[in-house]
Structure formats: structure tokens, C-alpha cells
């Protein structure tokens, strides 16, 4: 059989939304392209030149027609825009309590780490039916994390974080591509997403050597880098208390506020003087160049874990205690 499918596998909640929108556009496009082609053909035959001396005479333009074929396409595109924007918003708003997976792109591989610490390269095992939030960055050039079966794609940009999410709906193995050109082995920067039944996923997690979770690794780094001397577990340190910080709004010197999210913590480690918490001195040295991208992600995971005593690995449903606004993908240090 030399046939080919017209759709890639539909294996995430988003895939259904995207395909419905896609079908709407396909219908509109087929209607107009076939309509125009047929009209052309009919006119070209019906009004074909029958003699060289034929001069058919003028037809003036028609304002009614012009308005019709301006307004109808306009309205159709308004629907496309609104519908498309809704889907896009959904894509950019990971559900609360999603399983957090860190992704670092590096020529030419994907390095992934589970919240429980398992590391994978070019392969990601996830359970079916559970939202997974990807925090992406890159160690070198721009890469793009693309899973056609999930209809998600997000650039991994060096020096900042971007966020994507998906919820797999069907066990199976799916392509993972790098879709932003990144050099010689760009087309080899591919991998698989393995979607497992929850029980199988637990088994998979249990296999292999006992992993160190990113939060635990972050805790170790926290001690090694002597962060702990200032950011003490009680409130008497020279630096702000980090327990319960993540996701809260921080009062800064100068009266501004900022939400303590990944981008803020990243900035505070690399550029401590940028945003000083009210009531503290700007004494923290920069860690620029001392911590790798992966270590940064681990430190952030540790600080995040200080705010989720029940462990963020499996938060009980509804434990978030009210909706916290999720952040736009693409927050970075370029914000004041």
C-alpha cells in the first residue's frame, strides 16, 4: 500500500482543537480555490474568442460586487483570527499542577529531566492523561521542540525560558523533531515521545538507578554554592527567605512588584542587582558563568519545591488553593 495519511496521529488534547480549526480553514480554502478555478474555466470556455475581429465591449466595475467580495472574506478571516487566538492562548497556558519536565536543547540532542529526576536524551516517557509542562531552554543556538502528534512546537532560545505543554491522550510512540535549523546535524536532532499508561509509567520510573530529582540536585547545589549562608531557612538571613516564595508576588525596592516565577529566579541568580527585594541590601554576587543551564533549572526546581511541601511530583487535585495566573511563555531578563 503506497497510501499516506492526511493527518498525523492525534495524540493530545490540543491536537483535537488544532485539527478542528484546520478543517475550518481547509473547507474555506477549498471552497474559494475550487470556486475560482471553476469560474475561470467556465468563463474561459464560455467566452472563448470565436473570431479575431470580436470586440466584446465594456463592462463597468460594480461597487456591490467589490463590497461583497471584500466583506465576506473579511468576516471569514475574523472567525479564523478569534478561533486561532483561542487555541493559541490555550497552548500557552499550561494547566496548574502539570508535571514539570525540563528540556535543554544542545547541538544536536535534547536533554530532558523528569520532576522525579530521571534523565533522558532524545526520548521522553510520559503518562497518558496527565498534563506535562515543558520548560525549554538551549545551551547554544535556537532549537525548536516539535511533536507533530501533539500539535505543539516551541522554540528553545538560549538565555531564556519558554514554556509549552501537552496532555497525551493515547499511548504510543511519537516523533520529536527539532524544527528550527541548528546546524550540521539538525535533521538528526530527533527523538521519541513514549506515552505510557499511568501504571506502566510508574514501572518505568521505578526502573533504572535511583535518580536524583532536580529539586534534590538543586538542594545540593544550593549548599555547594553557599547560597544557604545568606538564604537561611529561618527569616534571619541576609538574603530573603525562599520558603514559600515561588509563585508569590514580591515587593521590590522602589515600590514595584514582581511575581517570583522561573524567569525572576533565573534573573536573580545571574543578575542579583536587577530586582532587590524591599528591605534587603544588594550584596549578592552574580553567579553568571558559574552555573550551567541545567544547574539553573535544578536550583529553580529546588526553590519551587520549597513552596510545595506536598511535593510537586503529584499534587493532589485542587491543592493549588485558588488559581494562580500562569505566566506567558517567553518571560526573560529583557523585562525591566
Amino acid at each position: 500500500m503506497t497510501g499516506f495519511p492526511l493527518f498525523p496521529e492525534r495524540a493530545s488534547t490540543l491536537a483535537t482543537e488544532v485539527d478542528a480549526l484546520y478543517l475550518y480553514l481547509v473547507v474555506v480554502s477549498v471552497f474559494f480555490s475550487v470556486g475560482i478555478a471553476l469560474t475561470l474555466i467556465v468563463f474561459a470556455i464560455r467566452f472563448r474568442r470565436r473570431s479575431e475581429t470580436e470586440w466584446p465591449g465594456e463592462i463597468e466595475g460594480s461597487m456591490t460586487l467589490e463590497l461583497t467580495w471584500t466583506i465576506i472574506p473579511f468576516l471569514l478571516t475574523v472567525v479564523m483570527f478569534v478561533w486561532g487566538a483561542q487555541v493559541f492562548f490555550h497552548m500557552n497556558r499550561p494547566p496548574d499542577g502539570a508535571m514539570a519536565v525540563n528540556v535543554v536543547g544542545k547541538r544536536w540532542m535534547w536533554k530532558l529531566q523528569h520532576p522525579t529526576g530521571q534523565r533522558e536524551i532524545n526520548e521522553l516517557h510520559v503518562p497518558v492523561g496527565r498534563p506535562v509542562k515543558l520548560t525549554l531552554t538551549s545551551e547554544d543556538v535556537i532549537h525548536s521542540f516539535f511533536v507533530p502528534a501533539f500539535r505543539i512546537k516551541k522554540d528553545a532560545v538560549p538565555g531564556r525560558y519558554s514554556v509549552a505543554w501537552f496532555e497525551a491522550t493515547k499511548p504510543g510512540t511519537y516523533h520529536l523533531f527539532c524544527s528550527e535549523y541548528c546546524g550540521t546535524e539538525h535533521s538528526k536532532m530527533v527523538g521519541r515521545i513514549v506515552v505510557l499508561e499511568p501504571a506502566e509509567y510508574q514501572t518505568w520510573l521505578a526502573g533504572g538507578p535511583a535518580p536524583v530529582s532536580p529539586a534534590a540536585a538543586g538542594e545540593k547545589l544550593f549548599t555547594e554554592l553557599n547560597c544557604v549562608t545568606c538564604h537561611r531557612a529561618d527569616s534571619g538571613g541576609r538574603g530573603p527567605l525562599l520558603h514559600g516564595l515561588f509563585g508569590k508576588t514580591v515587593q521590590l525596592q522602589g515600590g514595584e512588584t514582581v511575581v517570583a516565577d522561573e524567569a525572576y529566579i533565573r534573573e536573580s541568580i545571574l543578575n542579583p542587582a536587577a530586582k532587590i527585594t524591599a528591605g534587603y541590601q544588594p550584596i549578592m554576587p552574580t553567579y553568571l558563568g558559574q552555573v550551567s543551564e541545567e544547574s539553573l533549572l535544578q536550583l529553580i526546581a529546588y526553590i519551587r519545591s520549597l513552596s510545595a511541601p506536598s511535593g510537586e511530583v503529584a499534587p493532589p487535585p485542587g491543592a493549588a488553593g485558588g488559581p494562580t495566573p500562569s505566566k506567558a511563555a517567553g518571560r526573560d531578563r529583557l523585562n525591566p
Partner: protein
Amino acid sequence: MTTPEAALPKTHYLNADYGWKSWLFTTDHKRIAILYLVSITFMFFLGGAYAVVIRLNLLEPTGSLVSAETYNKLFTAHGVIMIFFFLIPSIPATLGNFLIPLMIGAKDLAFPRLNLLSWYVYIVGAVFTLYALVAGGLDTGWTFYTPYSTVFANTNVIAAGVGIFIAGFSSILTGLNFIVTIHKMRAPGLTWFRLPLFVWAHYATSIIQVLGTPVIAITLLLVTLERAFHFGFFDPNRGGDPVLFQHLFWFYSHPAVYIMILPSMGVISELVTCFSRKRVFGYNFIAMSSLAIAGLGFLVWAHHMFVAGISVYAAMIFSALSFLVAIPSAIKVFNWTATLFRGSVSWQTPMLYAFGFIGLFTIGGLTGLFLATLGIDVHVTDTYFVIAHFHYIMVGGAIMGYLGGLHFWWPKMTGRLYPEWWARVSAVVVFLGFNLTFLPQFILGYLGMPRRYHAYPPEFQVLNVMSSAGASILGVGYLIPMVYLAWSMRYGKVAPANPWPATGLEWQTTSPPPTENFPRTPVVHEEVYDYSAPPKEAALV
């Protein structure tokens, strides 16, 4: 078909002077157009040769024909040559250069020496870029995305960047010349709303060239400086933002698509009205939609960056604006179609290309809506869907229009008729080959095949083989005109002054025209595209 006793005029621009100096130092816009025609034809077949190797390599999932490194250089060279050295100068520098003074009844462009300079600038730019492609090659993709191009690429980025920077000025000079010419050199009685739509389209194109090109010039200059020195604007390790490069790059490179397609739309307007023997339907709407495209085209660039990490709100703004630019294109298509109604439709070669253009451009335009729609763009951007889309616009649109125009004005440019049968065959071959090449790529893209992949998963092979097969047909389709047009220059039937016959001042002078175009400055009394009666005989012969 035409009067057989037509004879070539005694002196015309081609035989007014002889020797290589008379060509290399000419300031005659018609001769400069020919210089450009020869140069861009060379570039077209060179870029096409790269495409052939790309398609051959993709016949097979492992891409075993060339190495990954070579493959990356191939698609980069294909893109750089086709975009900067073929498509952008294609219609404006050849047909536009040749026809605008003729159409507005002028002796030449406003700045003839600047016109010649622009060709030399183009050649210098091309030499730099070709040097870069030969000596070490270039593997950044034509998009030069940072920080890959500034920090990681080990290839000849600087030479290529300088070459494109230089070629940009050629484009600016052409646009500047057209703007001034159209404003200041029109014949008496030739008001703005008597201008052929080809001139309107070139006016709109020139606006984009003048306003957009300097931004890509400075951007590529900065990329070069960033490689050579330590400017860190686009390098995250130096505090820069790579996404900023994309903003500046697409500020030009999106409107650049309209530099390629608008002149083609101008050609199609001429063809449709001439071969239907009807005044074009909704002249004002077509003219104004060209300006609308030029203006709105500058407001949509970030739809290339929806997954690149721009803010969700900026993405919404750019998505909404992107839909707006679709409307004027739709208006044009509807008006062209309506022009045929109750006309006298001839199926001569240029009209076949016009039919092809309208069909393919419609598909290209409609698939553009998919890319403007945020929720779909995320899935299809950077896949073969995008490749198919922009080839429908740039090859199905721009090149079909270019070939249609070249056939239509070939008798004017050379004084000879081309062999009609061969021309019709090749038009059909191009149309079929094109669709076979690029329709499968839409499906490939939605299935998820990323662009710029040297090797791919085996399930994509069937569609890739179809595409490569189509490309071979397309290649033949492009070679046939090359042969018979060259043949016709010597052996073709001598063309009368107005072979189709068509309205417009360029048909009122001899084929080929004399050096100063008209024996005396024409005065225009008629409205544009008056096909209610046979166009008057070439009065100025």
C-alpha cells in the same frame, strides 16, 4: 494571426550601436533590462541546479546522496540565490526596467546612469555572494538566524552578508528610480488613473524596496560586525536577544515577498485585460489594493515568529494584521476573474500563464491564512507546509507571472515572435510539474516533516518521491522556454508593432523600440484599457 508583411524597423535599440562597450556602458533602460535579464536568468538556473540536488537527495529517507553538511549549504545557496539574486530583481529589473518608460511615454528612466550603476552594484553583490558560496560555502539558511550565524557557523557568513548588503542597494536604486520616474516623467495627458496597472504595481513595489531594504541592510551589516567584532546585539551570551534579529530580519523579509509578487500581479492585470479584450474589472480597486498590500505588508512580519518566544499579545496583534493583508490580494483575484466575464478570451500562451497564476496564487494566498492563524501556525511553521506555501506564492505566483510577462512582451523586446505551440506546451508542463512538486509538500508539512531536513522518517518517503518527480517535470518545463526563446531571437517570425493587439503606449512604438522609445513624445487622450474597439494602429511607428 498577424500581418505577415511585418518587417523589423531599420534602427532600433538593439542595433543602434555595436560592441561590448555599447552594452556595458549603456544608459538605455532597455539595454540595461537586457543586461539584467541575462544575469538573473543565469542566477535562476544556478539556483535551480541547487534545487535539483536537494530534491534528488530527498528521494530517499536517509538522504544518502550528499552529506548533511553539504545539504545545508545546498538549501542555503538555493534560498540566497533565488530570493536575493533572482526573485527580487526578476520582474522589476527586467520587465519593469524595459517597460515603465515605454508605458508612461518617457524617453528613459529619470536617472539612467543610476540605473546602470544599480546593475553593476547587483553584479558586485552577486560576485561576493557567489564567492562565499564557492569558497567554503554558507550553511546558515537564507534567514541568517542568530546566534547560529553570528557565533556558531563556520562558513562564509561575512562574504555572503556583504554581498547581500551590496545587492540590497541595487534594489533600492531601482525602486528610487521608478518612484521618481513614475512621478515626474509621465507623458502629457497620462494621469494617475490612466496608468497601466503594471505601473501601479511597480510603484507599490518600489515603495517597499525603498522603505524595507535599508533595514535588512543594516541588520546584515550588524550580523557581520557581530562576527568580526564584539557587537552583542543578537548574542545571548553578550546580553543580546536573538529574537530581536528576527524582528529586524522579517521587517524587510516579509514585505520582500510582496516585492516578488506585486510586479507579477501587475503583469497578470495586463495579460487578463488584453487577452479578454475587456477593460479590467474594478481598475481602481486593483490599483489601490497594490498600495494597500505595500502598506499593510509592513505590519505583519512577526507572524514568522509565533513560536519564537514573542509575547502572546504581540502575536495576537500580528495575527490580526496578517489577515488584513489577505483582503487586497483577494480583491485582485476576484477582479481578474470577473474581467473574463463576457469577454473575448484568447488562450494564447501569456493567458495560459495568467490562468496558472490565478489558480496557484489563490492556493498560495489561502494557505497563507493557515500561517496567520495562531493556533495552526504553531503546528505548521518551520515545516514543509511553509515551504509549499511560499513556493506557491514565489514560484507559482511570481515566476508564472514573470514567464507570462516575458512571453507577452517578448515581441516588443526582441522584435520576434516565439513559437506558439512550444510555448503552450511548456506552460502546461510548468503548471503540472509545479503542482506535483508542491501540493504533496502541504500534506508533508501537516504530517510534521520539518523544513531543512537532510534525512527524514521513512513514512514521509512517498510524498517526497512525488515531489521530486514533479520537480523533474518542472525543470523540463523551465528549460523548454529557455531553448525556444533563444531560438526565436534569430529565427522567430518578425513581430509587428502591436501583435496581440493590445492597448498601452508600449505597443504604439516599433518592435523593438528605437533608443529614445518614441519618435515624438506621445500625448494621451484615451482612458486606460479601452478595448471597446480595436486598439488603434501603432501610430508612433
